[in-house]
């Protein structure tokens, strides 16, 4: 058994609306080994996106410990978290979140602007990432000139360009047709198998989840 890359211990998360506490996650405990391809499933409001946000460090748990690659994410400052995310996390969202004014190449290059890589090195990384997702011939295209599936593949290239420790995808097929969804899940599976990427996918779609090695279900903030 590979060593756990993500260790979640007694993690709870609540939001407050007009001073009323709304618990979203309750006492979550589980480990995700290095090289795992995990699908988190559950109905709307079950807390799966919240859990993904906590693992990615874009939100903080109300209580409990959450360690990724040996780093207790819950204890990092905002600045440390931003740096940590840029080095360890690749994020893919349902609606791609590409900047419409940047080309595919520039969108993928964006995370590398935070590194000390030279322009030539950045170019090499971007071209590699775009060729992995099969879009080497679309470098100069703007998001509006791409199909939904192609946009999501650019988003995946952007997520992997800095070679992150962990790739997190929140409903990556939620806005795509059946064939494009299949292509995206195949691509993620390939990234896991060929490049050894640890991947966590949040999805509603059982067919998308089939590509994962492990499926965990959340219901009302608890793992089932």
């Amino acid at each position: 058994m590979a060593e756990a890359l993500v260790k979640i211990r007694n993690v709870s998360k609540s939001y407050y609306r007009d001073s009323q506490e709304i618990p979203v996650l309750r006492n979550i405990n589980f480990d995700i080994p290095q090289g795992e391809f995990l699908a988190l499933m559950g109905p709307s409001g079950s807390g799966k996106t919240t859990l993904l946000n906590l693992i990615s460090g874009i939100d903080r748990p109300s209580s409990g410990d959450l360690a990724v690659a040996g780093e207790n994410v819950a204890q990092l400052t905002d600045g440390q978290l931003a740096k940590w995310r840029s080095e360890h996390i690749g994020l893919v969202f349902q609606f791609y979140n590409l900047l419409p004014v940047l080309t595919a190449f520039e969108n993928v290059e964006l995370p590398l602007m935070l590194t000390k890589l030279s322009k030539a090195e950045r170019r090499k990384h971007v071209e590699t990432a775009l060729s992995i997702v099969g879009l080497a011939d679309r470098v100069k295209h703007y998001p509006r000139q791409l199909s939904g599936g192609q946009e999501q593949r650019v988003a995946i290239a952007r997520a992997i360009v800095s070679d992150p420790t962990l790739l997190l995808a929140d409903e990556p097929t939620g806005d795509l047709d059946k064939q494009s969804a299949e292509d995206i899940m195949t691509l993620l599976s390939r990234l896991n198998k060929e490049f050894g990427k640890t991947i966590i996918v949040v999805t509603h779609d059982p067919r998308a989840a089939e590509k994962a090695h492990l499926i965990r279900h959340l219901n009302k903030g608890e793992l089932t």
Partner: protein
Amino acid sequence: MVLSLIIRNALRHKLRTFLTILGVAVAVMAFGLIRTILAAWYSSVEASSPDRLVTRNAVGITSTLPLSYREQILKIDGVKQVTWANWFGGTYIDPENFFPQFAVDKDAYFEVFPEFITPPDQFEAWKNDLRGAIVGRKLADRFGWKVGDRITLIGSIYTDNWDFDIVGIYAGKDQTIDEGSMLMRWDYLDAWIKKNWPGYAAQIGWYVLKLSDPNRSTEISSAIDTQFKNSTAETRTETEKAFALSFVQMSGAILVLLKVMSFLIIGIILMVLVNTMVMAGRERTAEHAYMKSLGFRAYHLVWIISGESLLIAFLGGGLGLLLLFGVANIVKSAVAMWFPVFVVTPATFMIVICVALFVGLLAAIFPSQRVVRMKIVDGLRVVD
């Protein structure tokens, strides 16, 4: 890439950006025009020299001083030269054609005012012609006068028809010097007064003193006024700047209103730009949140937002300046009667640029504040 992103962000909504730039430009032009009017109002103050004092009758500017004071003033330690002048107040054909006319001392006036540059032969001609007049270049252009012309003024104070020979045309040493006045010989005027109002002869309007050391102006002013204390014509001596300022301040209320208007216009520019930047910030909430999730810090985003705001402000300011130069050039001749020096000064140019950039920075505060406070999860709206 950051600069490219700033430019492309600004061009996302081309019409909105264009209208914002245009709005900023028109407001900047209006602001610059008001500053130009104010600068024109204060041009005599700006053109004053620190090594010159003005001595006038303590009762007021309309009361005269005896010419005999000149020798006594000249003897005061620190006074290098003394000249004098009288307001003439004549009308050229029609009262609408107003321009300042001064009867001046032919021997020392141009020595005390070296910023009025006259060709030596024309200056000599003026000294040899009692009816001679030297006019400013802009005044000559305004009425199409040239050397050799004879003109007639109808005196409103010294009621007569006065003939003058244009013997010279002076130019200012720089663009802040008034080139819209007429200088005639004081002895021509005095000869008329001797003949018509003998009791008022050998009187002058004010003295202008050139000092050997400007730092002694307070001491010398005091010495002069003390010397003529309890005489029939007590004096009031002040720096040329204070003398010029006393005329400007007669229009104090108008000046205050103009200044208030200029600040209101800055507020308008700010509102125009803030509106655009706030809209742009709201539209890009998810993008900003995503950039934060990538590891971009709030200050990176503040740079990008501020850059866009500054770019729009700079383009608006630049276009506004071009409009300002154009409009100032067009209205210059129309206002020449009141503002002989009506130019967009380097100071106005700098103020306008600074105001535009300052407004650009201010307008970035609201969207920047929002992006700094925004939580990534809120920006992404992904709470599931």
